[in-house]
């Protein structure tokens, strides 16, 4: 069994602040973390490996410093790590990112590919399904439970609006996973030692077979036109008095705006 887990190093968006004067992001002191959903993807990969055996590779497309995230993946239990890094990948949107990832994954002949549901910096949730399409394999989104996995197929629960679907697929398949799936393990001491010494494979454009017109900024159909800060919330009213008075005031306000 060949398991590939896609991961991404992201700024911790909960720590990102906006400079109110310039309307730009303040990066200072914002740590880089592994996209939280990807932690659950890694854990899922390890559990599948433990059950049916095989090899698990973590892969990321990112800057040279994203190597640190891959080492964390190895510390948790990945056998191999691959960093996709090249200037030609500059400014990729979800289409170009998925295209590039698929060209690398193609060479890994994966049976099962696992991604986090979405990355918290972009929140698009598109790279997983788009990658599956480029690889011409099926995908199952929002996996919240793996009911059964064998050498040839997998049966999972897919979270939907009002419950879940039980979905089955033969391999190869791509899964995107939600937080509910599992509890990511902490790396063992041995794992950390292995990760420290691990040699991270690095692939550039020359290591994959890709059409350069489909890469990076040039290959990206979408463009960011501009960025702006959402309107700040204003006009907060604190409702004072006894609980009774507070509740009465709230009801008055809600009736005033016809919400009651």
């Amino acid at each position, binding site marked *: 069994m060949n398991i590939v887990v896609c991961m991404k190093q992201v*700024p911790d*968006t*909960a720590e*990102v602040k906006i400079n109110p004067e*310039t309307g*730009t*992001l303040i*990066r200072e002191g*914002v740590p880089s973390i592994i996209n*939280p*959903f990807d932690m659950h993807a890694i854990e899922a990969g390890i559990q599948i490996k433990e059950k049916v055996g095989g090899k698990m590779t973590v892969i990321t497309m990112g*800057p040279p410093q994203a190597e640190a995230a891959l080492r964390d993946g190895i510390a948790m239990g990945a056998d191999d790590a691959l960093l996709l*890094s090249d*200037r*030609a990948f500059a400014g*990729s949107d*979800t*289409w170009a990112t998925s295209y590039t990832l698929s060209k690398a994954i193609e060479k890994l002949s994966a049976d099962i590919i696992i991604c986090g549901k979405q990355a*918290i*910096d972009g929140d*698009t*949730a*598109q790279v997983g*399904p*788009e990658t599956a*399409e480029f690889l011409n394999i*099926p*995908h199952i*989104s929002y996996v919240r439970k793996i009911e059964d996995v064998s050498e040839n197929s997998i049966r999972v629960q897919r*979270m*939907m*609006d*009002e419950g879940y*679907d*039980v*979905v089955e*697929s033969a391999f190869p*398949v791509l899964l995107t996973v939600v937080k*509910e799936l599992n509890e990511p393990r902490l790396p063992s001491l041995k794992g950390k030692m292995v990760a420290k010494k691990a040699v991270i494979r690095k692939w550039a454009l020359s290591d994959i077979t890709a059409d350069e017109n489909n890469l990076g*900024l*040039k290959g990206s*159909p*979408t*463009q*960011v036109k501009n*960025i702006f*800060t*959402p309107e700040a*919330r204003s006009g*907060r009213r*604190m*409702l004072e008095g006894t*609980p*009774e008075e*507070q*509740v*009465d005031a*709230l*009801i008055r306000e809600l009736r005033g705006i016809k*919400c009651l």
Partner: protein
Amino acid sequence: MSLIVDTSKCKGCEECLASCPFDAIVMKEGKAIINEYCQVCMACVGACPEGAITEVEREAPKSADIDAHKGVWIFAEQRSGKVASVAYELLGMGRKLADALNTELSAVLFGATGSAAKELIRWGADKVYKSDDPIFEKFNDEPHAQLLTSLIREHKPEIVLAGATPLGRSFLPRVAARLRTGLTADCTGLAIDDNTRNLLQVRPAFGGNIMATILCPNNRPQMATVRPRVMKRGKYDEGRNGEVIPVKSEGLSSRTKVIETVKEVSDFTINLQDAEIIVSGGRGLGDPQGFKLIGELAGLLGGAVGSSRAAVDAGWIPYRHQVGQTGKTVCPKIYLACGISGAVQHLVGMQSSDIIIAINKNPEAPIFNVATYGIVGDLYEIVPLLIKKIKGIKGIA
């Protein structure tokens, strides 16, 4: 658009390095260089004291095919034969876009029954492309993607919209990948640029910290998923006429198979992302029983029950109720937060709600920073009182 450093102006002060959320700026021979990880967030532009970082428009040839694409399409998602509410919202927005472009509005309906297609026309569609293929009874991504892709190739719409629902966000990416076009996720605003006829797509990024306007200038169709409950429905016109076009669905296949669809019986049945009112509980509830109170208030208001991560992690309520960075992003008309302190991870999931009511013991709780109305007090005093008074108003004993 991309960012470049004018090396003649760059003095190598490294101010820009810390400003970059993506670590996309490196120093080389004393000058800053923006590398491939740049997401054009513009943070560095303001950070550079020399004004050395500027935008450059990228030149990409417009596909000759662009002018051949006409019309606005919406994908009308159905669940168990019933058209989802977001489809009518898409028709409301789609109608405006189509009118601005002076073109037709069409809906695409897979696996629907009865009068669903006629309803779409009454809500603003000029045409409905409809497939009754039984393959659409259960949701599988591949047949959805296959048929929508082939319809788009045949009829060449310039804009395709779908709901940013679990279903839309799962299969639309496959369509965009096949068509080699852009897809903008989870839009909260759409408009037409009068000069270029391009679709301006506004969406939150960085957990709602910033908004971005996205363009897809050189590929067609321009595709977007649109957040439920953001767009307004149009006018319902019972006498409105339109054309229902049955479509052929040959050669559809799915490599995934839905074995079973399970509706989860919950005390709180309304779907969070569809709800106009959400009553949420957090750590301040103290124990799982607190959600009975939250559920009672939500039920009374016809709303859904949400929660903070703390309450989910404590096992008081299932994960699908979680609002925030690793849960759901919601934007109801009213968000009532009870005993939620308002960690940033929670705020990013709900701060675009129209009205936020916060009830918390701690006057310093960050939830009050985003609140429209704040009540400092014990939720176990306030909420029962609120329930009692609302019951009084509604005439429920």
